């Protein structure tokens, strides 16, 4: 009568949107601009393309080919196109997904000049490669269906939800060991405190239960003894 399964919609939607994001960005630097736009037909891609358009429209940068900026939002100078593309093809898909979501989440929150953003982007690309182990854990976090999460949410909501789900990490940190290490320690400390509080609560609940049972048993014992006395020595 009943079957067990996780919510089907959320997982596939997140995966689909991420894959579509990765594929569109990897094709951006190699294919012609018109084909990139014509291949994007799903609503998710269109929303992303709108976001990128907004970024480029709102932040005028000194660039020799302004129409290239429109068509290839991820690459400003031509040399970094190849650099980015090289990184892009070698990083695993889940790393790409994270980087893009970071980019978009960061952009949605605080629009910054495009030149500054792309340099952060390049730094984050380079320094995120070694951190593969932690990435897998975060990806697991990303695809867990959140309570109240519905597939009908508009794309910006998905990004903000994904951002919330991941532990906060400032995109300005290039390869900071001290800053994020301190954060990690801090978080670990908080979690440890919570665990200790739960342990204390558990121990206290157990002793509570025992005390209650002792009181209950003592009362029962007293009652039974009284009954026994009454049976043995009935009042005259």
């Amino acid at each position: 009568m009943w079957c067990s399964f996780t919510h089907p919609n959320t997982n596939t939607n997140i995966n689909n949107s991420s894959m579509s994001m990765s594929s569109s960005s990897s094709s951006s630097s190699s294919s012609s601009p018109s084909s990139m736009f014509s291949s994007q037909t799903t609503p998710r891609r269109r929303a992303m393309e709108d976001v990128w358009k907004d970024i480029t429209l709102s932040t005028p940068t000194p660039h020799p080919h302004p129409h290239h900026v429109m068509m290839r939002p991820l690459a400003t100078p031509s040399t970094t196109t190849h650099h980015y593309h090289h990184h892009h093809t070698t990083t695993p898909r889940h790393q790409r997904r994270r980087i893009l979501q970071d980019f978009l989440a960061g952009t949605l929150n605080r629009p910054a000049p495009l030149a500054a953003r792309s340099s952060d982007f390049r730094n984050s690309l380079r320094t995120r490669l070694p951190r593969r182990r932690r990435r897998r854990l975060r990806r697991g976090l990303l695809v867990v269906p959140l309570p109240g999460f519905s597939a009908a949410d508009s794309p910006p909501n998905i990004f903000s939800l994904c951002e919330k789900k991941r532990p906060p990490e400032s995109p300005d940190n290039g390869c900071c060991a001290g800053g994020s290490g301190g954060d990690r320690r801090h978080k670990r400390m908080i979690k440890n405190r919570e665990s200790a509080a739960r342990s204390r609560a558990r121990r206290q609940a157990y002793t509570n239960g025992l005390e209650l049972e002792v009181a209950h048993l003592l009362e029962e014992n007293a009652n039974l003894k009284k009954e026994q006395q009454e049976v043995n020595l009935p009042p005259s």
Partner: protein
Amino acid sequence: MNRERDTLVVGRVIGDVLDPFTRTVPLSVIYSSREVTNGCNLKPSAVVHQPRVEVGGTDHLRTFYTLIMVDPDAPSPSYPNLREYLHWLVTDIPATTEASFGQEIVSYKSPSPVLGIHRIVFVLFQQLGHQTVYAPGWRQNFNTRDFAELYNLGSPVAAVYFNCQRESGTGGRRMQA
């Protein structure tokens, strides 16, 4: 009973799963002749099969109860993003009888925690009458409060919980002397 020392409050069952309520109906949950007392520890091997759940009450012809069994610490107490995981749901239990007399909406799934020490909570609600309850589509992220509101079950009439950790667990202690 002193609210602050109530085991359900101390164990944070009232808070995480339920709102404060008054016990009005006796509830006994018995796994293989071992009765569950609040906060006791049970291993997964002891709770493989569904327990005998004896329900008190007075009028077995007209009073019916709903029993819910959830794990609010799924998958791990420090990161319970699947709170609450529904293990068992039985409705239309007549008063003074057992859960086996009721209608099993969601079949019993034995707790098998992997991470941490989980609380497994049994909650008993009094129904207004016979009612049709629809099984949720999945077990995780069940919400007892919302469920009670949806089916007009009101406040719980009884609750009991136990702690459960994986079979080879150290009882929360990492370094053993």
